[in-house]
């Protein structure tokens, strides 16, 4: 469990980082390293070059205002989770983050890194997708913003170009007439979930996002469907598979159970916010 040789760069500026990504073949960006380092040590990944962006200036900003939450690329999960402002402006982010692995991993792992790693079993890609957030990237051809709907292409595959680096993720604030909910079931506390569900409801729509069900984080519109039936309805858009931890039928059952639970939680959350307003 020792990685194969690689060249290591730790640039100080974004320009430097982008230049390295453009010039070095087979380069990979590393932020917190919580997904990449295990892949390297098990030699499941063997990039020729690692561009460590942890020293890049300006990536460690967590900015919260009435519009939403902007998480810089080097902001650790733990810092986002600890922010009372984040919890107030977009509680779904905080609710989901408490399920991300364990404290030691949250201390190093970054929220943006988790999103662009595009693991369909991870919590934060689904949260971004359900909320209709986005990721800002910079690359050889300049800056652009990628909407969550356009970000996740396949298993561990995002739409970032090889020479692009994500600089921040944007989670819109929760509107006054909206509510959210999150739940997942994992084999052990802090494990990747067998199924996880994030929901966002408002006066006109109900959206539910699923992790560990399809190859990409998947959002299903269940507007107008009774929560008790919403999971079954969502299954028409989902293809739960089986693995060593859960059969396909069991995953489908968890979709049914968790969808109902989370939708009810989101509706109650919405009502409680309106009651408080």
């Amino acid at each position, binding site marked *: 469990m*020792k990685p*194969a040789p690689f060249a290591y760069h730790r640039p100080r500026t974004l320009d430097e980082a982008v230049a390295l990504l453009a010039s070095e073949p087979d380069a990979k960006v590393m932020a917190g390293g919580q997904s990449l380092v295990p892949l390297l040590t098990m*030699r499941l990944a063997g990039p020729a070059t690692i561009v460590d962006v942890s020293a890049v200036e300006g990536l460690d900003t967590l900015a919260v205002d009435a519009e939403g939450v902007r998480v810089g690329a080097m902001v650790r999960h733990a810092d986002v989770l600890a922010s009372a402002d984040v919890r107030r402006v977009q509680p779904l982010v905080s609710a989901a983050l408490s399920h991300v692995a364990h404290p030691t991993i949250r201390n190093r792992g970054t929220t943006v890194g988790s999103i662009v790693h595009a693991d369909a079993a991870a919590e934060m890609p689904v949260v971004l997708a359900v909320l209709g957030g986005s990721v800002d990237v910079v690359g050889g051809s300049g800056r652009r913003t990628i909407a969550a709907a356009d970000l996740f292409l396949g298993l561990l595959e995002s739409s970032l170009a090889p020479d692009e680096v994500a600089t921040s993720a944007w989670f819109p604030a929760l509107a006054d007439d909206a509510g959210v909910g999150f739940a997942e*079931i994992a*084999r052990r506390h802090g*494990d990747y979930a067998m199924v996880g569900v994030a929901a966002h409801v408002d006066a006109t729509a109900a959206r539910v996002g699923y992790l560990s069900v399809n190859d990409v984080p998947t959002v299903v519109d269940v507007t107008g469907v009774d929560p008790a039936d919403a999971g079954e309805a969502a299954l028409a858009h989902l293809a739960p598979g089986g693995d060593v931890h859960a*059969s396909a039928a*069991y995953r489908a059952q*968890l979709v049914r*159970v968790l969808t109902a639970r989370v939708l009810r939680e989101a509706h109650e959350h919405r009502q409680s916010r309106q009651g408080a307003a």
Partner: protein
Amino acid sequence: MTTKLMGQGVQRVEDDRLLRGQGAYADDLDVGPGLLHAAVVRSPHAHARIVDIDVDAVLDVEGVHAVFTHDDLTGPMADPLPLLIPHPALTHGRTQYALAKDEVNYVGEAVAFIVATDRYVAEDAVGKVRVTYDVLPAVVGIDAARRADRLVHDDVPGNLGARLEQQTGDAPAAVAAAPHRLSLDLDIERSACMPLEGRGTVARWEPALDRLQVWTSTQSSTGVRAAVAVKLGLDLGQVDVITPDVGGGFGVKINHPWPEELLVPYAARALGRPVKFTEDRREHFISSAHERAQVQHVEVGFDDEGRLLGLDVEFWHDHGAYTPYGLIVPIITSTQLLGPYKPGAYRVVFHSLYTNTVIVTPYRGAGRPQGCYAMERTMDAIAAYLGKDRTEVRRVNLIQPDEFPYEHHLVFQDGRPLTYDSGNYPEMLDKIKALVDWDSFPARKAAAAAEGRKLGIGLACYVEGTGVGPYEGAHVHVETTGKVKVATGLTSQGQGHQTVFAQLVADELGCRFSDVEVVTGDTRRMPYAVGTFASRAAVMSGSAIHLAARRAREKALRIAADALEASEDDLQIVDGVVSVKGAPEVSLDLGTISVLSNPLRYAFDEASKRATQFQVGDPGKPPVAEDDEPGLEGRDFYSPERATFASGMHAVIVETDPDTAEIRIVQYAVVHDCGTLINPMIVEGQIHGGVAQGVGGALYERMAYDESGQLLNASFMDFLMPYVSEVPDGIDVDHLETPSPLNPLGIKGAGEAGVIPSAAVFAAAIEDAEGFPITAMPISPSELFELRLAQS
């Protein structure tokens, strides 16, 4: 008189150092300049012939010092590894080579051994070895092994390594004649030890001295020493094996020698440089050992009260690709299955089968969890059939306190009669019922059901033969400083031996606990030893240390009586000082007695002047008497006639989620009898650890092999050892002490006990919650959900 330490919850002396990261494990050892690091090329196939091994691409890699394949091994190193425990029934025993010769039989089998400047370079080189395989069909799982349409070893028909039958009475006839009969088919899957520290070996060859020193993470340093000497063609006296701190064993490190335990010293001698191998976690999954997998069939006949009239058991044991540890695991299953019960007649037949998977050697419990599972599932089935309380069916079958020693007329794992020495099973059953409030559970279950919740309770009982022979020894040496140096040859891997052995020495010798230092597993200090397994350390080395301390005490009293001109009977030893009872000012400390015990020509300090030739001794007699030895020492060995039998009963209450089938532990209770307790805190720690490991085995862990023999979950991401969040918040523990008559302290073993009833007790509780039979363990929420679907 100071308080006896026997029975006191003395704080472990090991922990301060270990918890501060000051332990020194094999990988921490820097044994000299020029240390090289090894990595192993392992088979990616479960079953294949090796056509060619091309190492050319490796030889040019900078930093690579050597590559070994089987062709490079000479002498006994080129022969198969030892079959450690031969048995007449093991008619087709097979062991692997240190490096595969012609054929591989499991994913992970060692094929080539690379030595390089560091492990990074060594792993780079591993990727450059080109092995051409002719892939053969793999035999995976007991069903495939029994079908035998494919063979693991061409010369082992039916994949059958051994078939062993034992019986007492005519069980088939008793079953046939019984008023009631049941049959059960049961499955239990593989798990593994998973110590925090995997295997690791460091070796240094000293050409000037013609000597080899080996440090290895083992449960038997004397065993490794003997194997290394034989395989490398050395005299035993040329080889030292030293066990550094060991980060857990749980059985896997009692199997020896591992290929790397031979290849590391072999390479160190060949290269003239120290060499180190540290197993990584993936290697531990695919190239160490697993255990547990069995398929069982039970036929039982019983009367209206549930008394076992006849018990007829057949099981199929998956021993993996090779049989280095013989038949120990299935023999233990077949004998310890009986637990605290006395069937009218018993027959057991097992088939030990080859599969193209990692070898099976003892894992904490060592076959007992499977036996307990078969017996206790049977007890529950009888109770369900008769509509009786599960504790009452067990009660009518218990061996009674006045029936000890109880002779089962079977042969145990040590080749000796299965004879229980002592116990009190009816009282234990009363205690466990009280601890878990068994009789009020039906009301509690009904109240939960009224809220739509599912609760279930399970009970499982076991008897564990502990402290098997052949022997252990001890050496107790009182230095002239009064410090007491104790050596015993078996090894430690976290049990707290330094603490409990020091308790025993302090009590028997009369020295201060803090003056005792215990060394284990170092062949330089104690070359005669067996090892740490079968819950035997306290029984075997504890007894030996007690006896050795007694010898040191007797000598101290003899010398002191002479020096103080008092009768030995009038002397006492308290806190390291020998004094005349009632006249404490007439005294000598043990350090001074140690000085006096060793007649000196040369004084080296003030105290030692007392022992020099012009100070002491009768000029008319030899300085050391004919029947005496210099020094204040005691040395003794303990070799019991047979094992001593500990026992226990566990109960668990679980709640299963009606929607998600998640299984939550509500309460876990243990009553435990390991004879006279040396240190209740350490015993409870062993129980807690065992229960946690049992929770893993029952609810989380399994070895997920696919049909081609690839292990799909060979990492801690997918092999689910329970976290602290998955084990019970608290474990209710009650003790019972029925001393063993077989050793001077009445001790029975405690190390493995906590894990033995797990599969049985969780199956019982889940069955009670769900209302349908649970016949396969471990069980996950997904599997419980699938069972519900099949029921509906």
